[in-house]
């Protein structure tokens, strides 16, 4: 299982706080995006935004970063600070 979280404006755009994926066929962050879009095509617009950030287990990573079962992956817009 891979836990996927969404924050801030992205969470509102998707209308979803987060989702759990089985992990089958998922090797990278980009695979997660493809899997989500395969299931919900209207998410494509939001998940392909160029300034979208991603963290794996609380560390910011790139789209080609590997993921394995048990990881927590989060997608969010640029932070605006406290």
């Amino acid at each position, binding site marked *: 299982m891979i836990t996927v*979280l969404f*924050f*801030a*404006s992205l969470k509102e755009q998707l209308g979803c706080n987060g989702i759990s994926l089985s992990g089958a066929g998922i090797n990278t962050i980009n695979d997660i995006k493809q899997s989500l879009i395969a299931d919900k095509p209207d998410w494509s617009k939001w998940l392909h935004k160029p300034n979208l950030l991603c*963290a794996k287990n*609380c560390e910011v990573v790139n789209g080609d970063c590997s993921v394995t079962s048990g990881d*927590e992956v*989060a997608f*969010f*817009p*640029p*932070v*605006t*600070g*406290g």
Partner: protein
Amino acid sequence: MHYIEVQKKDFNVGYEYQQLVKDNSSDGAVVFFVGRMREFNQGQKVSALTLEHYPGMTEKLLAKIEAEAQERWPLEDSLIIHRYGRMEPGEQIVLVVTASAHRKAAFEACEFLIDWLKTKAPFWKSEETAEGTKWVEAKASDDQAADKWSEK
């Protein structure tokens, strides 16, 4: 003492100060920063601010930046309390306290921490104005303030 708290509830500046300095007679200089919710932002009246954060990641990054401040400056004590949730004008949002034997270190470390918190910490702001509620975009001037510390 090095302390970090990300919390929904308000904090008491006087109490936090007392806790920090009690039984301590080596800190000659204590610098505090309190960030408060302003009624106006960029000329527009804001009736409330909501800060969303990524629980877990926030604490991890705050601990990292506090450790970096301790490496750069001889800090005896440091304290970061950052709130999340909905806040109204005049409410306290963030407290940073740094204490050192000398004032220059305490000032520089406090400014370093708050510059980072205000720009790089994983928070997202939404503002309630007469036009409705909207997410705040990242500001370039804030990034510059944080960037000055990477030149050192």
